[in-house]
């Protein structure tokens, strides 16, 4: 026997090749199932992040490509600014070239979104390259005709090819004055500019675009190139001083950063889902390795007897887990890319509808960093999962190596330790709940998760013991055997139960959040968004491209049956470096129609003050996210002088997930110089029917102007559809939960059957029927499902609370009520039990098909 340690390196590789590899081959199914845990976790991580990054990347790419040689961009939120600003910018000492721009996304029926870029063609070529088809260097065939005729368009070749249009073709687009046919006077070849927005790009004269999109005399932004020798910072300072704080002066790339910031709440939910998926994967790996250590005790004992050191044994198992983690991560990354491809379009739609980031055709952008990180995380997760089993394997005493059973149980000491630790962590997490600081709150959340994981095996054991009499009553033989299997070897199944518990807890949290959000939004729709009809320039509530002239209010008010018309104007601004929605409403009128009490403030007084321009309202979500209170003075940048007013009320408002600031319409017109309207809210007069008024409004504008008139019911459906999309993530979680149940239970049962091979062989030898053996396995699987469901629901109730807190604090500022999702639990119970049963089919068959003689000889 060797008295000194064998050098590390080559012997480890030998061990892997001679010991690990044959084990993997012999237990191929279990190895695959174990690896699947990592595959699942990594696939979700890669899939969700890649899809998310693809959306943001596509947005940033579009910005970059459209920017061309632009050094800085000047904007003032979505509402734009007056034309007079252009001259100020052009006369700045640091500015070499400054050109105005308007960007608008139009929905081309049957053909998707088209980004229309309005530019002043007399000077825009200084900043952007228009690479025209046909190898011409001219912008278009006849630039003067292009400018003289407001129906002129240049389109990207990709768009032209997709829609089978060419120079001279006509293209119908919806405008503020109704659907109009445009003439394509040029086609841009594939280039940086032409490939922006996935190739769905059109260029038109900026002044024609103003008319087309009802922009009055405003621009969306000014793109500029700095004079040589002057730095961007210097120029930015000069322009900020010249224009005032209402204007953002930033490099084009910053707009991509703003979009990222806007999506931070959504990204957080993606991270939580990914983290849970990885955690679950880790448990599956842990379960498998823990069981493997138990099963290979004799093998370990022999190795130790032959001179292998503890570190070599520990290293062997860690090496196996690392190898499994590596393989699983690579496969998971590949699966994740496939998921991203499938999900990218859905996520782009979700992000576009909920956050207003324009949807566009895009390729999935697989970033090496994301893939590399995912593989590293997967390997690390697998290593972490293998640490305890590896440590246990290293501690196996060669003399006691043949002992079984006792290793599957929990010793009294271990159980006590678990209980004490779990209790301690529970107390700590409760204390952390009272803290406002984010790190402490999340530390508390982590503590409660660890506490649940520590207590899960003990709880499983306890529940199994409680269920035994019932099972024995149902099936005296099979029920008792199944219950005993779980009670006598809790380690075998505790990890599967824990993984199932986590997965179900996440589902319940999301389901509870969705339910509460739904109720809150419906309540808001009933009390605040309670107009009978909505007159809009677009069928989509999220598109703010086109606006109406204010004069339409009087026209609509004159329609028979109309009792009241309210003008609603909204657009994003930058407030404290974050995009929030600015809403301009007629406060006096809204005061009379809104049936909801404010969250803070006195309804009558707050509307009166806001109407007279002495205050503003904020949404509860914004107040939560930015810790705002009534009385606090806010400074809001505006093109014609900033607004500095106190908050006079906090209201429930779901206009935008980023939160909203509500001011009186007159204040908006005064400070933005813009009286256009995003949509009109119509209240029907007593005695008139909604359907009749709807028809009359449509008839009033037929052939004159494109309008979309939605009933309150239709508007509600649209908004609730957006809410459903946001929570579509939950459907992914349900699938993951079912997969987890399946994988975990198959894994546990496979190990269980192998471990009990002799026992099952003895049963068969003394007369147990195959059906009885099968049923035993089935019942054991169903019990695992029941344990997982019970613990999952219990932990889910706690997890829901934390999730609601996270939503309120960090995601959307929504103050949602706690409602346990009973309906979801009723769906999950049969789903998980069915998955458990299906998972048991193959292990049950393998249990009854082995050789009886071999089973009796198995040790």
């Amino acid at each position, binding site marked *: 026997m060797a008295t000194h340690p064998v050098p590390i390196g080559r012997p480890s590789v030998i061990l892997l090749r001679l010991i690990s590899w044959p084990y993997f081959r012999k237990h191929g199914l279990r190895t695959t199932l174990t690896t699947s845990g990592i595959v699942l976790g990594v696939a979700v991580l890669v899939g969700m992040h890649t899809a998310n990054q693809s959306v943001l990347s596509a947005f940033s790419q579009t910005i970059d490509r459209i920017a061309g040689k632009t050094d800085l961009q000047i904007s003032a939120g979505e509402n734009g600014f007056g034309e007079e600003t252009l001259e100020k910018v*052009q006369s700045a000492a640091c500015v070499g070239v400054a050109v105005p721009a308007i960007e608008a996304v139009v929905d081309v029926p049957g053909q998707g979104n088209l980004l229309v870029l309005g530019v*002043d063609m007399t*000077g825009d070529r200084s900043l952007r390259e228009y690479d025209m088809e046909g190898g*011409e260097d001219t912008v278009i065939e*006849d630039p003067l*005709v292009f400018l*003289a005729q*407001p129906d002129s368009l240049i389109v990207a070749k990709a768009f032209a090819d997709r829609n089978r249009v060419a120079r001279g073709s006509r293209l119908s687009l919806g405008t503020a004055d109704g659907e109009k046919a445009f003439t394509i006077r040029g086609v841009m070849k594939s280039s940086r500019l032409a490939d922006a927005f996935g190739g769905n790009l059109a260029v038109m004269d900026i002044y024609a675009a103003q*008319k087309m999109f009802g922009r009055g005399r405003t621009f969306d932004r000014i793109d500029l190139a700095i004079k040589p020798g002057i730095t961007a910072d210097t120029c930015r300072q000069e322009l900020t001083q010249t224009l005032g704080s209402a204007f953002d002066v930033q490099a084009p790339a910053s707009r991509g950063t703003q979009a990222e910031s806007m999506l931070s709440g959504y990204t957080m939910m993606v991270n939580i889902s990914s983290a849970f998926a990885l955690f679950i994967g880790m448990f599956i790996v842990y379960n498998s390795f823990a069981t493997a250590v138990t099963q290979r005790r004799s093998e370990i004992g022999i190795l130790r007897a032959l001179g292998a050191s503890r570190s070599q044994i520990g290293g062997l198992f860690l090496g196996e887990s690392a190898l499994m983690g590596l393989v699983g991560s690579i496969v998971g990354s590949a699966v994740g890319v496939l998921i991203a491809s499938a999900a990218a379009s859905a996520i782009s739609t979700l992000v576009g509808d909920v956050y207003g980031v324009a949807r566009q055709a895009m390729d999935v952008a697989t970033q090496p960093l994301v893939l590399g990180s995912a593989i590293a995380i997967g390997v690390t997760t697998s290593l972490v999962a293998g640490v305890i089993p590896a440590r246990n394997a290293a501690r196996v005493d060669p003399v006691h190596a043949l002992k079984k059973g006792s290793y599957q149980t929990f010793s009294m000491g271990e159980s006590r330790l678990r209980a004490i630790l779990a209790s301690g962590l529970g107390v700590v997490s409760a204390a952390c709940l009272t803290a406002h600081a984010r790190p402490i709150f999340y530390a508390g959340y982590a503590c409660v998760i660890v506490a649940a994981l520590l207590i899960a095996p003990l709880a499983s054991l306890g529940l199994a013991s409680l269920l035994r009499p019932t099972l024995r009553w149902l099936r005296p033989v099979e029920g008792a055997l199944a219950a005993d299997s779980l009670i006598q070897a809790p380690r075998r199944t505790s990890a599967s139960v824990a993984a199932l518990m986590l997965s179900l807890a996440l589902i319940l949290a999301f389901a509870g959040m969705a339910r509460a959000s739904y109720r809150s939004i419906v309540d808001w729709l009933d009390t605040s968004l309670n107009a009978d009809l909505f007159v809009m320039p677009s069928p989509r509530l999220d598109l703010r491209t086109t606006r109406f002239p204010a004069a339409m209010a009087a026209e609509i008010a004159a329609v028979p049956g109309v009792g009241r018309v309210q003008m609603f104007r909204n657009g994003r601004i930058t407030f404290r470096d974050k995009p929030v929605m600015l809403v301009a409403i007629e406060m006096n009128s809204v005061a009379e129609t809104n049936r909801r009490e404010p969250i803070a403030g006195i309804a009558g007084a707050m509307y009166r003050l806001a109407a007279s321009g002495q205050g503003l309202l904020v949404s509860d979500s914004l107040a939560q996210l930015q810790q705002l209170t009534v009385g606090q003075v806010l400074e809001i940048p505006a093109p014609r002088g900033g607004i500095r007013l106190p908050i006079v009320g906090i209201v429930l408002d779901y206009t935008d997930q980023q939160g909203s600031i509500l001011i009186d319409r007159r204040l908006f017109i005064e400070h933005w110089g813009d009286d256009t309207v995003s949509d009109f809210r119509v209240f029907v007069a007593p005695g008139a029917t909604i359907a009749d008024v709807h028809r009359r409004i449509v008839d009033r504008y037929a052939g004159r102007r494109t309008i979309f008139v939605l009933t309150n019911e239709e508007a509600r459906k649209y908004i609730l559809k957006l809410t459903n999309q946001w929570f579509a993530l939950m459907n992914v979680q349900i699938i993951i939960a079912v997969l987890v149940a399946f994988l975990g239970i198959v894994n546990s049962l496979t190990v269980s059957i192998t471990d009990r091979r002799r026992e099952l062989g003895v049963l068969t030898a003394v007369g147990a029927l195959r059906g009885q053996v099968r049923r035993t396995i089935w019942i054991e699987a169903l019990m695992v499902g029941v344990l997982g469901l019970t613990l999952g629901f219990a932990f889910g109730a706690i997890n829901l609370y934390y999730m609601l807190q996270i939503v309120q604090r960090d995601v959307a500022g929504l103050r949602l009520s706690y409602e346990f999702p009973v309906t979801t639990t009723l769906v999950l119970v049969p789903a998980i039990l069915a998955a458990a049963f299906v998972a048991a089919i193959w292990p049950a068959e393998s249990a009854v098909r082995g050789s009886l003689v071999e089973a009796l000889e198995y040790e």
Partner: protein
Amino acid sequence: MSDGRVGRVGRVGLLGRASCLALVLVAPAILPGTLRAQDARQIVGEAQKRTDSKSQRYDGILQTFDAKGKTSEKRWIQDRIGAHGQSKVVIRFTAPAEVKGVALLIVNHPDRSSDQWMWTPAIERDRRIALQDRSTRFFGTDFSFEDLEERDVDQDDYTLLGSEAVEGVDCWKIQSVPKPSKASQYTKAIIWIRKDNYAYVKAESYAKEQLVRRLDYGQISSVQGIWTARELKMADLKRGSVTRLFLDKVEYNLPLKEDDFTLQAIRR
């Protein structure tokens, strides 16, 4: 726009002639460089003076020929009022139908770049052509917006490069470099001015030592005593394209109103 007008010859008295003769004989020995510069400036100044009129009108036919031989034609009416270098010009397109009514207002200044606006009737909007945009081609032609401006003689520095015959006519060859106060896309120009009547016959424009445009003045004839080029041919040497402007029905000193040269007027 330089339209090839050449002003009338002025009268000079006997004492003035003798003094001039003395100066001509003595001055080159004392101030050779200065005299040359003044000669060049004087020549250009004289050429400008001979084209002065209170007002002008013509019907223009603009033909564009690109490198592939594709042509297009537009017509306009140009009105001009005021002294050289501080005049106001209105160009109104009359054909084809798609561009009819589009108008351009140019207000020239002797000491700085001109102000230019464009009116588009179809959208009822005017737009200012920013200084930075002057290098842009004028609606697909080989003229740039800067080429439409009138340049006062004091906006450039001149150097006489000698004499050269152009199409058999003896001309002064003068180098013209924009003064620093005058923003220009060009770094210099070479102009040929006929010695017999001070009419421009050719101008070559350079950007950083590279010849980029050449303007030929053709069909020079006397209209109401003013030598006028009735054909202007601008060649963009980088693109290989040519634009021809034919001046028809040229009239000078007709009664035009100052009020017709405002932004409000072109909106009508």
